[in-house]
Structures are given as structure tokens and as C-alpha cells.
């Protein structure tokens, strides 16, 4: 098409078009994508750089980081391969679909050159000892029994039959290709305007949902067990709260059962115990001179509780699951979320007067006197941890496009693999030896199936 007089950009455009309109490119991309995808399954993805240094050494880690093999499926070169495949699909569809569509629209013809029948992949020529009319009847019967649509014509005593079925099967591959584009489009939409987040919500706690005008409250979290002690299910009871404390809906979610509200899904993802809060601490008073402490008293988080038989009341104001004191900054922290060294800080009141704010340690009772100047001491004897539920938050408007793509793909598969485009041509004319029949047919796929069908049609025409 291109000539020397064409502008350079037209020639370039034509070359690019030609490049993408190539099945060799498709095969190359499919096999390349298959091979490079293996790398990402062998090298563990999205680990700390140190982990790669440990496994592969410094030099190889540099290679891995340079080629982004540690996050391969999001690397620009991997994306580029996918984009090439997308252009490949688009150009091939543009190039192949319109002619196919036109050919399908105009395929019906009851006039054809009988000489061409001999060139079809399935063809036969034979004589029948009945009249042309009867042969025509047999042909119609045979075609009807195999559910073909057909048309026929007659001129100069010669009969032409053209029959077809399963035309839609031709478009299966187009549906599949479009579905792939839709799925990729959905994933692009998802990563462009969707977001993922993770929040821990304490029981009775509330979080504001990011990029939304409502909040989420956890009313309850519980774990179900099988009789054998294995975990059956994690459950959270969530309430959607709109502005002005308006409760919209309450739903129990579990793994496989998310909550959906205003385009955002909330998934049960994990659970744990708080490292900086407790539900209830158990505090016991050890009166001066006694060796045994009194019975422990439950003290709810941040609520004042009176210790019976004394003038003291206490309030839990801090909790650390893995207490540590940092000398440099003169502050306390938790080394981990594990309850390795649980400690609470109390406000201790005698009557109405705050007398001390000691840290008490579960594992080291009595290391520091808790109330200065008196013999009485307090013991931190236990606690009820505060559970939180880990909720994954996911807004992905692209998901629906992906599902539409999946449905289109299923439809395409049915057409492409289970509907075959079959065509049959028959030419009948009367000769001295009897009625001469030329029978030919093609199928776009599944030749073995068609051979049987073809044989059946021939048998009906020959034997009635």
C-alpha cells in the first residue's frame, strides 16, 4: 500500500500497524509472558531488600532490584509486554473482524460455481438412481435432520443448494479477545481510582473510613471453633455509622462474607489483641505487713474502681504489652505487640486525692513500691485483653468491569469451542447415467465431527 511518495509518518504508521498485525508477535508475547512470569514465582515477591541479600548475595540483589524482579508483575517492562499484547489484540481485531463480518453478512448465495466443490476439504461426487426432484427432497431431509439452514435455486434443470449453521461460532474468538481487553481495563481502572487499606478496630471502637463520609463500628468480634479445637471462622459484627451518629446497617462479616456499602467492601482479614489497651485489668491490694494479697478486683479500662475494704480507688490509664524503658529519651515503649512483659499504669487515689501513678508488672510483682510512704502495695494479677478485628478495606470500581469481561469470555468460549461454522454446497443435475450429485462442505473447526456429519448427509442422499 505504501509508496515512496507517502509521507514518512504514513510509512511509519503503516509499519507499526503491520508490526502489531502479526500472529508471530502474538506467539512471541504469549511464550515470553509465560517464561518471564516464572521468575516472579521463583523469586519471592515484595520482601525486604535484606531478605534478598541473605538469599542471593549482594551482586544478584543488585540485579534483582535493577530489573525490579522483587516486584516483577508491576515492573515497567512487564507492563510494557502486556501493553504490546493489548495493541496486538486491538490491531488484529480491527484487521480481521470487519472482513469477517462482511463475509458473514453476504455469505448466502444459491448460485455458485459447481466446479469449486471439488476443492473443498470434504467433497464427493456420485450418481443416484432417482429423479432430480426426489434427490432434492432427500437433500432437504438430510439438511433438516442435521439442523442446517439452507436455500436453493433451480435453472436449466440444475439444482443448487447452499446450507449453513453455527455462523456465530466465527465470532467466539472476537468475544474472547474483547473480554481480555475488558479485564485489563478493569484492572487499570481499579489501580487508578480504587484503593486498599487495612484498619484495626477495637471492640466497641470506631474508625473513619478513608475517602468516604461514613464510619465503621465494631460491635463484637468472636472466633468459632470445631469440636477438634481447629478454628472454624472469624466473625465481626460491624455497624455502618453515617454523620450525626446515624446507624445505617449492621452486618456480621466473616472470611468469605464481606460488608458492602457505598462502593467499598470490608473484609475480615485478621484479629489480635491490643498492645496499648486492655479490656479489664485485675488489681489486688496487699495490705501493709500481710504476706497474701486480697482478692483481685476487676478494673475496666479508664474507669475508676474502688478497692473494697480500703480507702483506695484505682484507674488504669496505660498498658504496654512488652514494656521497655528507654534511658536516652526517658520514655517507655512496647518492644512488640506480644504480651512478653505486660505492664499497666494506674492512677491511685486515697479518698479523692491522687497519691501516685505507678507502673505495675504482671511478671514482676512488687519490684517497685506502688504507693510511696506507706506499707500498702498493689499487685497487677491479670488482665482481659482487648480484641481488635483486622479489617481490609477495598474500593475497586474496576472489579465490575472485570466481571463483565469474565462473562463475555465465557460466552466467547462457548461460541469458539462448541459452536462450529459449517457450510454445505450441493449441485444436482440430470445426466445419462442418472442424477449426478456434487456434494461439498467445510467446517471451521473439529474436522472429525464434520466428517461423520458429511457422511450422514451423503448416505441420506444416496440411499434415501
Amino acid at each position: 500500500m505504501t509508496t515512496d511518495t507517502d509521507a514518512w509518518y504514513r510509512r511509519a504508521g503503516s509499519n507499526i500497524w503491520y508490526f502489531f498485525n502479526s500472529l508471530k508477535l502474538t506467539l512471541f508475547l504469549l511464550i515470553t509472558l509465560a517464561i518471564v512470569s516464572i521468575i516472579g514465582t521463583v523469586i519471592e515477591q515484595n520482601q525486604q531488600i535484606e531478605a534478598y541479600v541473605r538469599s542471593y548475595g549482594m551482586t544478584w540483589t543488585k540485579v534483582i532490584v535493577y530489573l525490579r524482579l522483587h516486584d516483577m508483575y508491576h515492573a515497567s517492562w512487564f507492563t510494557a509486554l502486556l501493553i504490546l499484547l493489548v495493541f496486538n489484540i486491538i490491531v488484529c481485531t480491527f484487521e480481521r473482524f470487519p472482513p469477517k463480518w462482511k463475509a458473514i453478512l453476504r455469505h448466502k448465495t444459491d448460485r455458485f460455481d459447481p466446479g469449486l466443490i471439488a476443492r473443498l476439504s470434504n467433497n464427493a461426487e456420485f450418481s443416484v438412481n432417482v429423479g432430480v426432484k426426489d434427490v432434492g427432497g432427500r437433500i432437504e431431509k438430510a439438511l433438516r435432520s442435521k439442523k442446517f439452514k439452507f436455500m436453493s435455486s433451480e435453472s436449466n434443470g440444475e439444482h443448487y443448494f447452499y446450507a449453513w449453521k453455527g455462523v456465530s461460532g466465527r465470532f467466539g474468538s472476537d468475544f474472547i479477545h474483547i473480554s481480555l481487553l475488558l479485564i485489563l481495563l478493569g484492572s487499570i481502572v481499579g489501580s487508578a481510582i480504587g484503593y486498599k487499606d487495612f484498619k484495626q478496630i477495637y471492640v466497641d471502637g470506631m474508625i473513619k473510613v478513608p475517602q468516604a463520609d461514613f464510619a465503621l463500628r465494631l460491635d463484637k468480634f468472636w472466633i468459632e471453633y470445631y469440636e477438634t479445637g481447629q478454628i472454624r471462622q472469624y466473625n465481626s459484627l460491624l455497624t455502618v455509622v453515617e454523620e450525626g451518629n446515624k446507624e445505617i446497617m449492621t452486618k456480621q462479616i466473616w472470611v468469605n462474607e464481606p460488608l458492602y456499602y457505598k462502593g467499598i467492601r470490608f473484609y475480615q482479614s485478621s484479629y489480635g489483641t491490643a498492645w496499648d489497651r486492655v479490656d479489664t485489668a485485675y488489681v489486688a491490694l496487699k495490705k501493709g505487713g500481710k504476706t497474701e494479697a486480697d482478692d483481685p478486683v476487676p478494673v475496666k479500662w479508664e474507669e475508676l474502681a474502688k478497692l473494697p475494704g480500703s480507702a483506695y480507688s484505682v484507674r488504669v490509664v496505660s498498658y504496654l504489652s512488652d514494656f521497655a524503658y528507654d534511658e536516652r529519651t526517658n520514655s517507655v515503649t512496647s518492644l512488640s505487640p506480644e504480651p512478653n512483659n505486660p505492664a499497666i499504669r494506674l492512677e491511685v487515689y486515697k479518698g479523692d486525692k491522687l497519691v501516685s501513678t505507678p507502673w505495675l508488672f504482671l511478671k514482676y510483682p512488687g519490684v517497685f513500691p506502688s504507693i510511696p510512704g506507706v506499707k500498702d502495695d498493689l499487685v497487677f494479677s491479670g488482665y482481659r485483653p482487648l480484641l481488635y478485628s483486622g479489617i481490609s478495606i477495598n474500593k475497586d470500581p474496576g472489579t465490575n468491569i472485570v466481571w463483565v469481561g469474565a462473562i463475555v469470555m465465557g460466552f466467547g468460549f462457548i461460541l469458539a469451542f462448541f459452536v462450529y461454522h459449517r457450510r454445505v454446497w450441493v449441485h444436482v443435475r440430470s445426466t445419462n447415467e442418472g442424477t449426478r450429485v456434487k456434494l461439498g462442505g467445510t467446517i471451521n473447526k473439529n474436522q472429525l465431527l464434520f466428517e461423520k456429519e458429511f457422511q450422514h448427509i451423503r448416505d441420506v442422499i444416496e440411499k434415501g
Partner: protein
Amino acid sequence: MILSLLFFTFSFIFYVIAALLYIGNWVFKKRWLGQTATALSYIALFSTSLILIMRAAESGHAPFSNLYESMVLFVWGVNVGYLALEYKHGVKIIGAFVMVIESLAMLSAALLPYRFKSIEPLNPALQNKWHWLVDLLAKVGLEKYAIGWLDFHVFTTFIGYAAFAISFGLSIMYLIKSRAEEKGGTNQAIASLPDSTMLDELGYRAIAWGFPFLAVGIVSGAVWANYAWGTYWSWDPKETWSLITWFVYAAYLHARVTRGWRGKRCAYLSLLGFLAVVFLYWGVSFILPGLHAYA
């Protein structure tokens, strides 16, 4: 465990005998050998179905939750596929290859360590049932028999694997046969194989079944993952390998349908595809870590 184990033992014996009978039919060309082999294959199919049913009865959920059960499902799928093929095309010699694959698959299932076989209750992520089906069955009090994405996902995937396994067998037969045809060998056993064009076409037909089923398996897995974890695709090794396998077979189909490849090149691509299937099924489960580590 007892009944399903009993049926497993029976099925194993049936498959081995069926394989021997098919081979006998191939070598000695006795009609009764072939007929007995086919009858035994149907009995083996029945017996394999009973393994699955008994496992379901013993565990209280569909028998698709560990490696052993999935192997039995695979064997079942290959048997169904083969019997359909034999019924349609009437070539019993293929059975010699298929039933050997079946016997080997049963053997490897039997040899699995106990932890891949034991009946375990479903962990939280595996508990997925279709609400509409639960509601429907609840009307007649059968809601505990409801199935969900897990069952659909595993079933479609394994029908795909089974079809690919059959195509693998056919491709090997094709390579043997076409080599003999080229050399004009006089080996009686090879001469009685179906002709190479037919083997080539049947191998393609098997892939034409496996490819959409694998795709439906992948997509249903994505739908389920979206329910369970909030993301339909996370490049987990199993997911990635399923895509790799799908790419290989996509290449096969494009080469064949659009570029008109036939014969040897197709057969080698089919072997490559099945290697990917084997790694997808066993390699990923044993070697690579990920969400599918349990099955």
C-alpha cells in the same frame, strides 16, 4: 475413612486391570479383551465416583479440599473424558495409554504422605457457599449440601487438567505414530495405532475442552478470592502458574487455528503445556509458598 479407602483400593485394582486389558487388546487384537477393558473402565468410573461420594459423606463437605481428593477428582475427570472419546470415536487403543496414566495417578495418590490425605474440617478461607443455593436448599432442609465457589473452582480446574492429560497422552501417541509413518516401520503394535492425522486432531480437541475449563477455573478462583480476601488477583504462585499454563495453551491454539500448525510442532507445544500443568498442580504445591499451599 474406611469406605472411601475400600473403594480407592478397588478402583486402583480396576484401573490396573483395565490398563492391562487395553494393552492386551492392542497387542493381541482380541475383541473380547477390548470389550472387557471398556466395561471395566465404566466400573472403575463408578467406583471412583463412590470414593468421592464417600469422602464427602465422611468429611461433610465436597471432596475437593486436599491433594489426595484432588488426585481422585483428576482420575475421575480423565476417565470421563476418555470414555466420552472412546464412545464418540471408537478407538480403544488410546485406552492403553490413558489407563496407564490413570494407574500411575492412583499410585501417586496412594503414596501421598498422610497429611495430604487426612480429612480436615475446612479452614475459614475455604468456607464459601452460594447464598442463593443455601436459601434454595433450605426450603427442603438440605442446606448442608449447598456448594460454593470452592467446589466450582476446583471442579472446573480439574476437568481442565484432565483434558490436558488426555491431550498429553494423544500427543505422545502422535509422535510415536508419525515417526513410524515417516520411517515406514513394520512394527505391528505401532501400525495398529490410529492414524496420525486423527491423533493430531483428537489432541487438539482435548485442548479445546481443557482451555475454556482452565479459564473458568481461573476466573472462578478470582471471584472467590475477591470474596475471601478482597482482591481478585494477587500474583500468588498458583495463580501465576495457572496463567503461564493458559498462555502456553493460548499459544498452541493461535498457532494451530490461525497459523495452521499441525503435527509435530503442535504435539511438542502440547507436551510443554502439560509440563506446565504438572508443575502448576504438584510443583507449586510442594515447592513454592503461597495461598494454595494446602492443596
